[in-house]
């Protein structure tokens, strides 16, 4: 059985059988709730990278991302008996993570004063897009994308990440974030505008 590229270095006690590989996420979760540990391992292999990146890019902090990643899986494990396959498993998992991200963001939201904000704005460099004579290299574009993602408002960043990282559609993003589809559309529209403005793609 070919090992998952992202989990090749992990010492899993069980190896997922081909049958499990073909099983849907929802059935794997139900199987785990019935006591099948291999189902959970398969599920974990499928979603660990995507989930971690979504959390990491939302939290902008490795330690916080690790903590939230583990907490997301803990909540999923705790809710195994109540799980009902009413929606995609990825949506269910990302919804747990998104709730954690929002809670963490609310707790750690910077409370800068007016003078501090003014000082930060004054010392910031002008946006790179304001310098037309400069041609950005690919490295600079990636760096710019990272920075603009960090600077995006949380709602816009989450909507963008759910789309590009997890591949969710408009309806699924709306379900995960608990917002209306038009709201999600608006958030994505603003996020794309800011990214294009910053990196010129």
């Amino acid at each position, binding site marked *: 059985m070919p090992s998952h590229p*992202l*989990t090749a*270095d*992990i*010492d*899993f*006690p069980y190896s997922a059988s081909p049958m499990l590989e073909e099983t849907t996420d929802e059935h794997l979760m139900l199987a*785990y709730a019935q*006591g099948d*540990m291999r189902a*959970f*391992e398969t599920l*974990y292999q499928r979603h*660990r*990278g995507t989930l*971690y*990146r979504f959390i*990491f890019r939302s939290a902008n902090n*490795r330690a916080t*991302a*690790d903590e939230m*990643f*583990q907490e997301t*899986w*803990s909540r999923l*494990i*705790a809710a*195994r008996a109540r799980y009902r396959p009413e929606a995609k498993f990825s949506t269910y998992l990302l919804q747990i993570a998104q709730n954690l991200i929002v809670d963490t963001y609310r707790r750690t939201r910077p409370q800068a004063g007016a003078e501090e904000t003014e000082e930060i704005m004054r010392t910031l460099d002008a946006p790179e897009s304001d310098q037309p004579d400069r041609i950005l290299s*690919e490295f600079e*574009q*990636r760096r710019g*994308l*990272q920075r603009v993602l960090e600077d995006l408002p949380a709602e816009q960043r989450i909507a963008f990440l759910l*789309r*590009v*990282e997890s*591949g969710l*559609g*408009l309806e699924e993003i709306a379900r995960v974030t608990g917002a209306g589809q038009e709201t999600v*559309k608006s958030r*994505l*529209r603003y996020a*794309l*505008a800011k*990214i*294009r403005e910053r*990196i010129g*793609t």
Partner: protein
Amino acid sequence: MSNQHQLERELEEFLTQSRLPIVDLYSKLPQPQPNAQLDQQVLKQARQALVQDAAKPAQVLTKPAARRIHTRWPIALSSAASVVFAAGLALHFGMENWRAQENSPASTTSSSATKVGQVHRSDSPEPKIDTNEATPAQTSSPSAPAAEAVKPETTDAAALNDATYMHKELSVDQVSPATPSPSDTTQKLEEPPPSPNTAQGSAAPLSPPAASAPITEFARDPEATDKRTQPAFPQTSDERQRTMMTDRAATLRTRNAEATKPQIAGAMQKSAAPAAATSLAMPKSAPTPTNAAVATVPTAEAWIAKIRAMVQAGQHEQAISSLKQLHEKYPNYPLPLDLRPLLP
């Protein structure tokens, strides 16, 4: 405007297409992964959860059963309690009705003797009640002209009583002879068992219902019981009977205790029952009971036994007379079958 249009187009492409420059650029970003330690922690947690699940089924199996038992018990207990409560209520009210029927002549007689005439004149649908009310008044006052006037009606009422005996025999026989009424019990406690001579010798003995009902009420009333222990009240059995005729009599006596003290004292010296206390309680038209009338009254069972003894001794006239008196005093008491032929 074109900028806005371009944004909308980019958004549509972003939502529908996977191969976009921005998505390609994002895929070239560093791809952080959870480290191995984090993976192990998550997998360990998942495994522990399953171990806990494996340990739970015994509790899960026992808990619902216990819960079912706990949810069933209150229903069963409440149902049983309701049944017991309903049965208790029915028994209580049934006994109350029975007692009321037994004591009805006493209460009406003690309240006012003038009612007797009114009741007899009225066309009551229950002639038995009329008889019960009339009989004690007649028997307790041998010298009263009014009592003489209603004697024929009493005879008719006695006949009616005979008819009702047959009707009530089943219900009363099951309860009354085996378990004497509380009034009888109270009467037994209040007064010593009378001698047969006293019962026979009394020309007009005091009506037992008239005496028993107030005794019952008196025994139930703690205030009256306390008053009974006071030295200002008459202590003889005659006086006690008269005192317990009605609640009204007791109240009036309490109010006029000071006024009646000399009379009661005089009566105690003479060892005779004065009529002063009773006259306060009873209307002027009511006859005053004599010493013979207020003599101790036997219970119906003892009386029946004495009558049987008379019959066996050949004293048929005395037995008939005594049986008549018994029947007048206890009109609702079911006469034994062997003694019924003695009555006309």
